[in-house]
Structure formats: structure tokens, C-alpha cells
């Protein structure tokens, strides 16, 4: 593997290009006209303009990306997250052009991409599932019967869903039919697939996910968990590791269960098994993300393992560079997603020129960002400006460090609003500081004022 094309944009494209540089591998950036002056275009060894701003004609346009890879002689493609990262068809096209897709095989992606199939497979591998359907639900009557037998609240999820979209929580029986139709319509519009399934909804639970990496020799390791319970409408805002709710024994158990599930599929590459964890230490499999995740730096900081490099190594056919025994968890890491959104206006995205972009620095303070002063935030793409990640020996110090780093972070531009102030309020909140909160934290404590 000598040259990797990065089929993505923003901070993750830059993150991947940096890993390539450190590994001595050439990188090719692809970009839309809206990203012509982006950081990764400057940083990468080569760059190819692939289309107009609209993603359907650029970052999702497979022919242009493959063509750029073939023409530049790239022998591998890293898809990052989002865009084509979980598209088995794209992975197949890569293979047919002798280009290594840095991720699992198309077959595994396809099976795990269908959330109902994934539930079935993981249930078969012995992973605990919340009560619910294995097969997609096809009629409103059936949905009603199933929901009645599970008991309310239930959650209706699109089988093709992901990224926190295509889910509806139903609290009362009388809302079920309406929510069922609505979720199907949304799923059809967003994912081009209206199949949904139903499971019990756990109100007081924590979103706890396990990071795994597997090589093509049948080996796998887990890098512990991340708690991502600070969410708004299923969109993660803050992630941390380790979770204060896991004992070493529970961590080992969740890790080994996650690995068992992944290895039963013949999984290769980095992936994340998402679980819900309740107050009694019981956990249930939700879904698997067959790609690198936004919040991967949190795991990197507590383990010292570079996940992007590890993805590249196993895609080259190498063995994992660590055994499970060598994975040590040290200290505490927290990530804040700094988005160009206005928390006072229902997190409406903002776009425009960044007159000032001054990220914090200092000890154990990492900023993964593609932004710089003078860059224009495009309205075409997601609103992530930066990931601010800090490490400290323990959670209390990590909170103080994050609080300090947030006060240093200056982002200004005409009409530009960010989530920095929102994060400061979270870090000042006694419930967040106590660590004793669930996925309803934002709704419960952060929506007033």
C-alpha cells in the first residue's frame, strides 16, 4: 500500500492524511468545489477536485472517486466516517478495481448495515438484545401487537438507519400507529428503505460502546468503552472513556462479548459495538458501526493506540500490533464536539466565514479540526468544526482541563454560532460532574434557558 485516497472531507480527512504521512504512505485528497481551499487539500500529497458542493455529485459520487483513485494510482481508499464508509456497494467497486477498501468486507458491511439482520446475527452469537423484533415489522397492526407485548415505551428504528437518524420513541399506546407510519416514511425518504423494527426503549440507560479492531488473521482486540450519553436527539455531543459505571470485570465482559460478535462475522478493521447499559450493570446490543467513529480519539488517548494507523495496517494484511494483554487503559479522556450550531435556536446550523479560529493548546489538549481563520464553513456539509479532546489522570482533572480549554477556544465570524458555550454549561453542571446521568441528560438538564 503506497498511496491512499481519502474519500472524505473535514477533520477526518485531515486526520487520515496525517496518519498516512506518519506511515510514509502518500495521500490523495478528493474535494468538491466548496472545499477547494480546505486544509486537507493543502496537506495531502495530491488533490483531485471531484465535483460541485452537493454531496450526491462529489463525496457520494462513486464513479468520480474511483476515477480519481485510478488516475492518481492510489491502491487503497480510506472512507472515513459518513459518506461512503458503510456502503458495501462502494467497497465492492473498490475491490473490482484492485483498490483496497480500508474497512470490513462488503459482505460483512451489508449484513451489519441492516439493523434487523445485525440483531439476528448478534443474538445468534450470544449478545444480549432488548426485547423486540428480529424480523422487520410490516403492518401497523403487527407493530401494535408487538409494542403491546413488549410494553411501553418502545423505540421504532429503521433497519437501514444510522447516525442517530430514523428512530422514534413511543411512550403511549395511542401514539404507536402514527409513529410507526412516520418512521417508515422518514426511513423511506432518508435511507430509501422503509423497513423498521421495534424494541423496548430504556429511558434510564447509558450509551456505552466498545471499540474493537480485528485483523484478517482472526485476531481481535477491544480498546475498552466510551460513554456517549450526552446526546441530543440521538446525536452525540460529548464522549468519554472510561465510563465511570464499568468495573474492570464488566469492561472485560463487554469487551469479550463485543469481540465474540465481531469475530463470528469474520470482521476485519476497526468497528464499534454500541450497547445500552442500565443502572444494574446489565447491557444490551444496539447496533454495530462498521467504520471509524468521530469519537475514536477518546480511545486513542487512554490506550496510546493510533486507530487510523491500525486500520491501515490490518487493511494491508498485517497482524494487529497489540495483543489484548498489551492494551492498557490509563487515565481519563473526554471529547467535546464543537459544532457550528446555535444552542439557543434549537441547534440550528450556521455557516459562513470564520474570521477567527483560535483553538486551545496546552498539556494533554488535542484538537482535531480542519478549520482555520479565513475558512468558510459551507452550508452543504455537517456542522462539525472541531473535536476538542483532553486527557488527564482522572475524570475530575479531565473536567477541569476541558473547562479550561473551552474558555480558550475562540471562534468568530459573521453570524457564526458554536456549541462552545453549551459545553461550558454542561461541564459546570453538578449532574454531569457527578457522572451519574443517562441518555436523557441534555433533555432533562440542558434545555431550559
Amino acid at each position, binding site marked *: 500500500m503506497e498511496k491512499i485516497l481519502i474519500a472524505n472531507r473535514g477533520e477526518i480527512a485531515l486526520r487520515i492524511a496525517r496518519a498516512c504521512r506518519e506511515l510514509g504512505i502518500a495521500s490523495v485528497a478528493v474535494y468538491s*468545489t*466548496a472545499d*477547494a481551499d480546505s486544509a486537507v487539500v493543502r496537506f495531502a500529497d495530491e488533490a*483531485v*477536485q*471531484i*465535483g*460541485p*458542493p*452537493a454531496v450526491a455529485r*462529489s463525496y457520494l*459520487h462513486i*464513479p*468520480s472517486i*474511483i*476515477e*480519481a483513485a485510478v*488516475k492518481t494510482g492510489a491502491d487503497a481508499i480510506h472512507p472515513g466516517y459518513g459518506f461512503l464508509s458503510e456502503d458495501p456497494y462502494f467497497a465492492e467497486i473498490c475491490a473490482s478495481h484492485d483498490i483496497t477498501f480500508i474497512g470490513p468486507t462488503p459482505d460483512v458491511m451489508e449484513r451489519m448495515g441492516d439493523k434487523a439482520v445485525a440483531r439476528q446475527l448478534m443474538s445468534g452469537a450470544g449478545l444480549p438484545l432488548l426485547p423486540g423484533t428480529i424480523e422487520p415489522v410490516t403492518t401497523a397492526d403487527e407493530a401494535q401487537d408487538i409494542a403491546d407485548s413488549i410494553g411501553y415505551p418502545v423505540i421504532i428504528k429503521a433497519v437501514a438507519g444510522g447516525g442517530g437518524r430514523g428512530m422514534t420513541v413511543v411512550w403511549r399506546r395511542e401514539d404507536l400507529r402514527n409513529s410507526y407510519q412516520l418512521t417508515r416514511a422518514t426511513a423511506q425518504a432518508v435511507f430509501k428503505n422503509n423497513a423498521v423494527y421495534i424494541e423496548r426503549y430504556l429511558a434510564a440507560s447509558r450509551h456505552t460502546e466498545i471499540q474493537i479492531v480485528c485483523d484478517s488473521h482472526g485476531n481481535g482486540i477491544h480498546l475498552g468503552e466510551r460513554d456517549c450519553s450526552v446526546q441530543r436527539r440521538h446525536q452525540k455531543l460529548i464522549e468519554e472513556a472510561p465510563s465511570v459505571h464499568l468495573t474492570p470485570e464488566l469492561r472485560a465482559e463487554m469487551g469479550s462479548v463485543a469481540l465474540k460478535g465481531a469475530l463470528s462475522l469474520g470482521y476485519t478493521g476497526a468497528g464499534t459495538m454500541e450497547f445500552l447499559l442500565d443502572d444494574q450493570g446489565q447491557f444490551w446490543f444496539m447496533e454495530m458501526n462498521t467504520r471509524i467513529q468521530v469519537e475514536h480519539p477518546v480511545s486513542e488517548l487512554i490506550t496510546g493506540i493510533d486507530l487510523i494507523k491500525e486500520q491501515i495496517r490490518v487493511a494491508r494484511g498485517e497482524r494487529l500490533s497489540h495483543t489484548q494483554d498489551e492494551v492498557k487503559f490509563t487515565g481519563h479522556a473526554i471529547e467535546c464536539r464543537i459544532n457550528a450550531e446555535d444552542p439557543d435556536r434549537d441547534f440550528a*446550523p*450556521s*455557516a*459562513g*466565514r470564520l474570521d477567527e479560529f483560535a483553538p486551545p493548546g496546552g498539556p494533554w489538549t488535542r484538537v482535531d479540526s480542519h478549520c482555520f481563520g479565513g475558512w468558510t464553513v459551507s*452550508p*452543504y456539509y455537517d456542522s462539525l468544526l472541531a473535536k476538542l479532546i483532553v486527557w488527564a489522570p482522572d475524570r475530575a482533572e479531565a473536567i477541569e482541563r476541558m473547562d479550561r480549554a473551552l474558555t480558550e477556544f475562540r471562534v468568530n*465570524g*459573521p*453570524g457564526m454560532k458554536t456549541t462552545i458555550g453549551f459545553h461550558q454549561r454542561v461541564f459546570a453542571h453538578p449532574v454531569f460532574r457527578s457522572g451519574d446521568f443517562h441518555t436523557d441528560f441534555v433533555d432533562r438538564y440542558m434545555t431550559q434557558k
Partner: protein
Amino acid sequence: MSVETQAPQPAGHPLEAPSLEALCQQAKVLAAGLPGTLTRLTVMVGDNRVEVEWQPVTVVAGVAPAASATIEAAEPETGVAVVAPLVGTFYRASGPDAAPFVSEGDLVEAGQQVGIVEAMKIMNAVQADQAGRVAKILVADSDMVEYGQQLMILESADAES
């Protein structure tokens, strides 16, 4: 959008009112640095006020901003560029032995095919958006082109050449 500002007070003279000149100067600086089109400008000396209103250019999602698709050298002063519709290989002719679609100096009609960009083994016709004379061909046959890359320059057919 609007912003109001106070003219800077000279240090040590907090009570001194700014001159009309100073306010005008500040208004000019503000207006020049606006992120959009100036729609209203008010300068008042009585209560030291400069008000600027502008139309933001930040566009709402889904509305296409003017795409800047310049890759190669800037367009010459006259003429319009024919650009690549996608990433691929540019061909001037329909086959190795065929005559080129156009050569420098040729007159073309709007909609006339002037080349091919091949991507993923699919031949995509490149057409002239408007009539004109081929002033310069910028890309060699079989070269890789990026989306939006200028392939050739057309100048107005009635321009003297």
C-alpha cells in the same frame, strides 16, 4: 444583519466627541469589511453612531452558491471556458484514428460536442454551452482532468481573430 459601533475615543480625552471625519472613516472601514452587500449606512455625530446593515451572503442549505471551479490558470480576459463535467480522461476525438471534434480556430454552435471525458469506461460528451470560436485548447488528448477543469476557451464568434 446590522452592527452598531462607537467611534474610537482618543486616549485621555474621554469626553471629546469624535469628528464627522473620524466616523466616516470608521464607516468606510466597516463597509469594506462586510461579509455581504451593504444595504444601509447611517453616520451620526450627535450620539457618535455608525450603523451598518448588510445582506448576508451565507446561504441556506440547499441553495447553490456560485461555485468556483478554477483549477488551472485564470480565464483570459475574453472568452468563456468549457469545463470538464466530471473527473476522468479527456479525449479530443471519438477514437484513436478519428479527427478531433474541434481544433483551435474552429467555430462551434451551442450544444456542439467538443470533446469527451471518459470516467469508469463511460464516455461523457463535452458540449459547448454557447456558440463561439475555439481560441485555445488547454488540455492534451488523454490527459486526466478534474471536475470543473478548463478544457478550452471559446471566444465570441464575431470577435476579430
